[in-house]
């Protein structure tokens, strides 16, 4: 057992954390949100330059073969900055599908562009009116000549409007398939909006979209297994991002308790608030522990991975809500203004719970899987 980071990991963490603190403060983030894209190409280029976009990809694909721990460190740092750039959408989520499902030829065609920061990917899986977090889709892909014709509609596509390439889940005759779709292809229409957390999000319609045989990732019917694996990796990343957002929220709140004066004293002198700040700290530390568990579970036994990831996601659903709500409350009115970072962290923490299964979903999943601790 060893909870120490290696020197290299420490350096990675320090570098990314410093990068976020120095180049992506709250006003920079506001600026990015107000830009036409709604996110910062400049910050994205900087992430590419630091090699972070290639971190989880294999060395033979031009990446660094980073592990879950490195991903955790990066996501925590990005979480502190509440970064709205497509790191999660492209590198983690869609990238995960490529890592766990795509052929060498597909990866060779796409991954280098991603690593260079030139190519944005988005995963289009969720649909309206479907059971939540199902691995099935109503969108269909039917064989046509050498390729496929895709029809359907997707919602909650994170950074769908930013992406050049979409990965679309669709039901084939043999089960769920995942398809690479050019976002500019005929029949694709994208309705761009923004999530309440500031992150761009889109609805995507696919009307008779023709793709070639080489668009299919894995085989027709392996889509669910690929998503299952990729989603767990993405959940671990979200857990780490939540830890970053919570840590930032906690620090700002404690600072505020020390500086805000009412009744002639710092409000942090009231025990009613002290205990609640301590409760926040406890939730943060529990979440941090679960982020480590999640990061270390990715490459092990699949059954144990699922249990651990579900446990971690359930934990941060609870902690994130508690930390966000308490931070807002202890700030008073300033906590709910858009001009202050805490409210935005609260919103991002809310979104993280909603993504890829909320707390209830994962608790139920744990019940199905037989609990956190495997039976003797």
């Amino acid at each position, binding site marked *: 057992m060893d909870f120490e980071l290696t020197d290299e990991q420490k350096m990675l963490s320090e570098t990314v954390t410093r990068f976020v603190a120095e180049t992506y403060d709250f006003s920079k983030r506001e600026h990015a949100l107000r830009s036409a894209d709604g996110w910062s190409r400049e910050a994205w280029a900087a992430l590419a330059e630091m090699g972070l976009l290639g971190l989880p990809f294999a060395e033979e694909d031009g990446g660094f073969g980073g592990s879950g721990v490195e991903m955790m460190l990066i996501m925590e740092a990005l979480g502190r900055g509440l970064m709205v750039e497509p790191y999660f959408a492209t590198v983690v989520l869609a990238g995960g599908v490529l890592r766990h499902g795509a052929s060498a030829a597909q990866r060779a065609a796409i991954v280098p562009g991603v690593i260079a920061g030139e190519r944005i990917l988005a995963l289009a899986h969720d649909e309206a009116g479907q059971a939540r977090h199902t691995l099935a889709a109503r969108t269909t892909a039917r064989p046509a000549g050498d390729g496929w014709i895709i029809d359907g509609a997707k919602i909650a596509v994170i950074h769908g409007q930013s992406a050049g390439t979409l990965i679309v889940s669709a039901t084939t005759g043999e089960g769920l398939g995942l398809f690479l779709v050019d976002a500019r292809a005929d029949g694709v229409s994208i309705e761009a909006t923004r999530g309440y957390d500031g992150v761009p999000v889109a609805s995507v319609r696919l009307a008779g979209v023709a793709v070639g045989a080489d668009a299919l990732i894995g085989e027709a019917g392996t889509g669910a297994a690929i998503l299952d694996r990729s989603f767990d990796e993405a959940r671990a990343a979200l857990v780490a991002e939540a830890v970053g957002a919570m840590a930032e929220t906690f620090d700002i709140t404690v600072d505020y308790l020390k500086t805000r004066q009412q009744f*002639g004293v710092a409000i942090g002198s009231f025990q009613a608030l002290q205990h609640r700040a301590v409760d926040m700290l406890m939730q943060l530390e529990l979440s941090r522990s679960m982020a480590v568990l999640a990061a270390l579970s990715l490459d092990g036994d699949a059954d144990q991975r699922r249990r651990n990831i579900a446990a971690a996601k359930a934990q941060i659903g609870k902690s994130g809500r508690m930390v966000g709500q308490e931070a807002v409350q202890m700030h008073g*009115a300033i906590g*709910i203004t858009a001009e202050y970072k805490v*409210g935005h962290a609260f919103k991002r923490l809310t979104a993280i719970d909603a993504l890829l299964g*909320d707390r*209830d979903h994962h608790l139920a999943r744990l019940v199905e899987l037989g609990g956190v601790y495997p039976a003797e």
Partner: protein
Amino acid sequence: MNLEFTPEEIAFRDEVRAFFREALPDDLRRKMINREHLEKDDTVRWQRILNARGWAVTHWPVAYGGQAWTPAQRYIFQEEMALAHAPEGSPFNVNMIGPVLCRFGTDEQKRRFLAATANLDIWWCQGFSEPGAGSDLASLKTSAVRDGDHYVLNGQKIWTTQAQHADWMFGLFRTDGSGKKQQGITFLLLDMKTPGITVRPIETIDGGHDANEVFFDDVRVPVANVVGEEGKGWDVAKHLLGSERSGIARIGLSKERLSQLRSLERRLAAEGVLTPAEHERLAFKLAEVEVELRALELTQLRVVSADAHGGGANAAASILKVKGTEMQQRMTELVLELAGPAGLATAGHDWVSAAAPFYFTMRKVSIFGGSNEIQKNIIAKTMLGL
């Protein structure tokens, strides 16, 4: 003890219910159901409909347009209003400045303001809080210095809800800084068009623009606009803050939301969006909320009835505020959970896209009106003697 309404009360309920059904414009009902933002004009329109019926300011003294209702009638009225999806009028007019003027206003102030306030011909805002004076309101600093027949105001208010729409402000200003902080505060009425007033909007996390900063730069206010006496504004403010008791928990609103949640629950289960297991979990949570809501409702009725029998239930208002706001917030969590990832997108005009902004904005209810921490301090002090 008896939980039944009397036949008279039931007849009253039916009358109120019928009125709301007929009088509430459809577009307003729809906006309320979808949690859409109400425009100023929406609120004005509705308050005038209520006022025409004599029901805009029911708890004001009868002489000024109020109704001599029993506490049970007031309770029924509020509950029916919420169940009908009717908006509330302007709280600043109805619950704050109106009762204050009825009690402390000069004859001239009453003549000038009361009828116009009830009809929302004047839109009021509340200038109490300042950057340095929130929970500790009495530490406010914005100054009013006497100069002949006028005061000259300098300083800043903050969080002033809907100041951008307001015709007039009622506020607290420091006319004397030499004594205890509760002394030397004066309650003033000012025309928002007076030169030297600047309103700056503050955006909130739900994307709304209801909050503002208001700056005063040598703003001249006639001495005739003092309410009560110079330097005695704190007493007026205390009266105002304590005046609206019976509706503070907003049970009717929570009941209406619960019934909306129930129909959503059924619809989503029928559509297969909720799996049977998810449905069961949700039903369980709703049952839990319902138990607490019923307990709170009965507590409120006990308070109301103690009021009617002259019992001193003042600190009970703090209990109702804390538990009532917790209930309102809990309801928004459940809707948020139901919306799921589809609720991320903020475009659209349905309950799904309204779920998250509503959850965010309702965090305010435990902050304003005396934060829930301050309410608990009041309970500890006045009920427990701690």
